[in-house]
């Protein structure tokens, strides 16, 4: 193909977009709305995933230290714990602080225990964070075997339940995201298909006048791509500025609830790229598959 023919195809594609005004408008707006939906839901679902991640990260192991342990033993225990590969961080918690925390956590009810401060029934403890929250149980079991560890507490039962819940939620989320993206792809391809079905006669005439399949396909290829990409413009703008706005205005409020939003960058860039990619690729794909149907003249 000559360069000038490629130029001609490009010019032809944009001419056609302009002259099919109504159709172009209808299909670009369908792409726009679909991608907007994808963008918004994706943002929300990613933030929920992020939230689940934060909740999981709150999980910790408390290894209570035997009252008989000397300072040496305590230091040695720390070294031993830190040697476990899955451990990220170890901090020491005195029994006095432990009781204070407990009383605070229990709220009003805890006041009843204030009297206990003199004869503290708790023990000193190491608070252990694992690299992956899911390793909590395994690490807890290893720590339990170490010397001078009286007992280990990691919210047995609750933690397993939590991970089960976050796993189920993640799976549901994945299914929803995939379903959403496939739906969007189908709808975009379908819209473009509808615009091309109505140009079937044009394609047939072109073939009768001696155009090769490739010659006919090129402008449609460019048109499909342009439709998809133009359709992604508004969703991208909404995502970029909308998320920035929501982040700035809402995240201080959410911070009081210990909920953190995903930072604006690079999230919005990634989402924008994804939307443009879906629009462009599906635009081309929808366009070419439907043109092919009418090329057999």
């Amino acid at each position: 193909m000559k360069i000038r023919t490629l130029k001609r195809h490009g010019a032809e594609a944009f001419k056609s977009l302009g002259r099919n005004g109504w159709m172009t408008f209808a299909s670009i707006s369908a792409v726009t709305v679909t991608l907007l939906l994808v963008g918004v839901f994706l943002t929300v679902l990613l933030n929920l995933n992020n939230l689940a991640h934060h909740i999981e990260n709150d999980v910790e192991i408390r290894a209570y230290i035997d009252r008989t342990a000397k300072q040496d033993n305590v230091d040695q225990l720390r070294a031993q714990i830190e040697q476990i590969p899955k451990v990220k961080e170890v901090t020491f918690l005195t029994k006095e602080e432990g009781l204070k925390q407990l009383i605070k956590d229990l709220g009003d009810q805890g006041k009843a225990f204030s009297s206990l401060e003199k004869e503290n029934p708790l023990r000193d403890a190491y608070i252990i964070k694992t690299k992956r929250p899911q390793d909590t149980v395994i690490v807890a079991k290893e720590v339990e075997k170490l010397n001078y560890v009286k007992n280990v507490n990691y919210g047995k039962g609750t933690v397993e339940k939590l991970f089960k819940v976050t796993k189920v939620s993640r799976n549901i989320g994945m299914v929803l995201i995939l379903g959403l993206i496939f739906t969007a792809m189908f709808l975009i391809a379908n819209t473009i298909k509808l615009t091309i079905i109505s140009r079937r006669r044009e394609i047939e005439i072109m073939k009768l006048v001696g155009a090769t399949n490739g010659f006919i396909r090129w402008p449609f290829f460019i048109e499909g791509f342009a439709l998809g990409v133009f359709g992604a413009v508004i969703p991208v703008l909404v995502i970029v500025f909308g998320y920035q706005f929501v982040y700035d205005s809402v995240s201080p409020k959410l911070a009081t609830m210990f909920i953190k939003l995903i930072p604006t960058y690079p999230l919005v860039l990634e989402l924008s790229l994804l939307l443009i990619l879906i629009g462009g690729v599906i635009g081309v794909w929808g366009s070419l598959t439907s043109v092919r149907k009418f090329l057999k003249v």
Partner: protein
Amino acid sequence: MIEMIDVWKTYPNGVMALNGIDVYIDKGEFVYVVGPSGAGKSTFVKCMYREEKPTKGTIMINGTNLSKIKERQIPKLRRKIGVVFQDFKLLPKLTVYENVAFALEVIEESPKAIRQRVMEVLDLVHLKNKARFFPDELSGGEQQRVSIARSIVNTPPVVIADEPTGNLDPETAWGIMDIFQEINSRGTTVVMATHNKEIVNTFKKRVIAIEGGRIVRDEQKGDYGYED
């Protein structure tokens, strides 16, 4: 040049449009195809540029057998045959100029050559001043002339015209006939399906008469026939 050997065409709905056509048209001939409405004239010419595939039989164009031709070769074949379609078949979203230029764009002519040649041909059919109009802004006869312009713009060795003067007043029709005679005199084969008795009887050429899908008459310098 164009040869049909025992060609039959039955449309999917059961209509038998061609029933054993045998014909040979030599290079440089000028042939009228006449016959009553629904006789099979359009089907006959449609088989030549492969708008329709015959159900049975062999068609040879310039030595190539159309039933053995590969799908990819068809565009090349069609570029060698200029067609004036009975229903014009103009691209509705392209201007007059662009419609005619299309036949040159497919052969990747240079834009400059295209511009010159298209304006030349539009001038021939007296539509130079309507070059920027869209087909639905034209009268019936003007649309027909655009279709004629497109068929001859790439100077193909064969021109097939299906009822090219149906929407033209006699004077304009005469002008179109002059064009066809002119290109024919330069060696182009012309096959023209027509109902225009006056034209056939004035410009005497070979006449092929089709009735019920059969060739019932084939004479050199014939006349329209069907006297009432």
